[in-house]
């Protein structure tokens, strides 16, 4: 009986150690080295691969910029109009460049005879897998609003560089390859099977404005006319907050109840034995 009592007391003590212990706060990942939550400008440029342009030429397909895009000296450039980017230290987070880069109002047309395929409004997602999606039109009619046009290989990406005087950051080295779906669609449009998925289109260089770049034209400074608030905003009362479970306390309570129940059983059995 003494051994049993000691065991009961030991379990109870073990259970009661749950009091005051909390839940370990979930550890967040490594901090980013740079974050731009609202991209405002600059461009994504692709130095076109001679193999890609040569293949188009051999098929008599003529590439041309559309909207605000430019093609100069073998480099196609598309202005960045929005999105965000977060850069981590390489090796700490994969992929170490994350975000979304939007390129509204620009694109590339591919024309052969009376057939014109237009790829525009590019959206780059450097995630896994990294892709470039865009809208596809055939002779002016929308074929798809958002399809993967290019696969992006970030393994060749070089470390980010910044230009303090220009207030810009540059990421270069991403290899742009034609996606299998885009190649199949182009083959179908141009009546050929010569355009292959995985074909290297070129090497991309992304230049983005860093936050705080001053307004260069137009009215207004872009600053708040009033005082900048300090800190965050108290926009909640907590009525929808969920959770509240402390596993250690809960386990401690259950064990304590078990110990109490066990003790009662022992007492009742001993009483029955004594009466018998």
């Amino acid at each position, binding site marked *: 009986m003494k051994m049993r009592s000691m065991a009961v007391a030991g379990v109870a003590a073990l*259970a*009661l150690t749950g009091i005051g212990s909390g839940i370990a706060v979930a550890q967040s990942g490594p901090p980013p080295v740079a*974050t731009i*939550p*609202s*991209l*405002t*400008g600059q461009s994504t440029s692709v130095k076109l691969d001679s193999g890609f342009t040569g293949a188009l030429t051999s098929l008599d397909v003529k590439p041309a910029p559309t*909207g605000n895009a430019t093609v100069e000296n073998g480099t196609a450039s598309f202005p960045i*109009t*929005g*999105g*965000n980017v977060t850069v981590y230290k390489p090796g700490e987070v994969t992929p170490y460049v994350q*975000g*979304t880069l*939007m390129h*509204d109002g620009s694109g590339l047309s591919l024309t052969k005879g009376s057939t014109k395929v237009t790829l525009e*409004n590019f959206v780059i997602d450097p995630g896994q897998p990294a892709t470039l999606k865009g809208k596809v039109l055939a002779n002016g009619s929308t074929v798809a609003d*958002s399809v993967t046009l290019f696969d992006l290989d970030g393994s060749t990406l070089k470390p980010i560089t910044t230009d303090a005087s220009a207030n810009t950051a540059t990421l270069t080295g991403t290899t742009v390859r034609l996606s299998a779906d885009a190649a199949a669609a182009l083959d179908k449009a141009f009546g050929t099977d010569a355009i292959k998925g995985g074909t290297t289109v070129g090497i991309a260089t992304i230049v983005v404005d860093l936050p705080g*770049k*001053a307004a260069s034209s137009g009215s*207004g*400074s*872009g600053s*708040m*006319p*009033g*005082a*900048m*608030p*300090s*800190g*965050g*905003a*108290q*926009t*909640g*009362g*907590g*009525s*929808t*907050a*969920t959770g*509240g*479970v402390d596993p250690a*306390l809960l386990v*401690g*309570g*259950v*064990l*304590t*109840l*078990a110990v*109490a*129940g066990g*003790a*009662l059983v022992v007492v009742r059995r*001993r*009483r029955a034995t*004594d009466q018998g």
Partner: protein
Amino acid sequence: MSRARRRGWVAAAALLAVAGVALVVLGLTAGPRAAAPIAAADTRAPVTVTAPPPTTTAVPDLPASPPARIAVPALGVDSAVNPVGLNPDGTVQVPAPGPLYDQAAWYTGSVTPGQRGPAVILGHIDSAANGPSVFYRLSALRPLDEFTVTRADGRTLVFRVNSVKSYPKDAFPSQAVYGPTTRPEVRLITCGGAFDARARSYVDNTVVYANQISP
């Protein structure tokens, strides 16, 4: 075992049972609480309001006119927008308890939507006792989602989400959120993260960065 000793054991067991019940109750209620997780598929298609999509994001600077209404189709939000100022401690005011509590609010020290700079629109995630509020699902917005702000002059402007960020209130990046921009932008702000029951406050803020794309 004597009767007295047995009674002692029963009393001890009863005390343990009471302690166990208390621990269970504490275990179910005393742990950390957080803003309700919002089920949002990262891969869902953007919810847009422009048809057809804009061909450019270059928009003209507009004269000042305060926002009167905000509609966020991706969240099912369509709310009046009321003005708020600053508290004596320099923090931004939020909708006070009462009939306007569950409506969005515009910080009058920021630009009006359509002007170059960040127009700041806030909304509660929830109330202390009455459940979800106007920006309850704000963290479910995704880049490329669009929403509209209608100004007092009748103009309805379209904004597109660039990013959705969460910041600790004690490390709030004021310059990134409230600093100057080169074009008309909007910041939508609400609470998020863990709920500090002692301070009766969430520890984080959710901030949506968006820029005007139309007209």
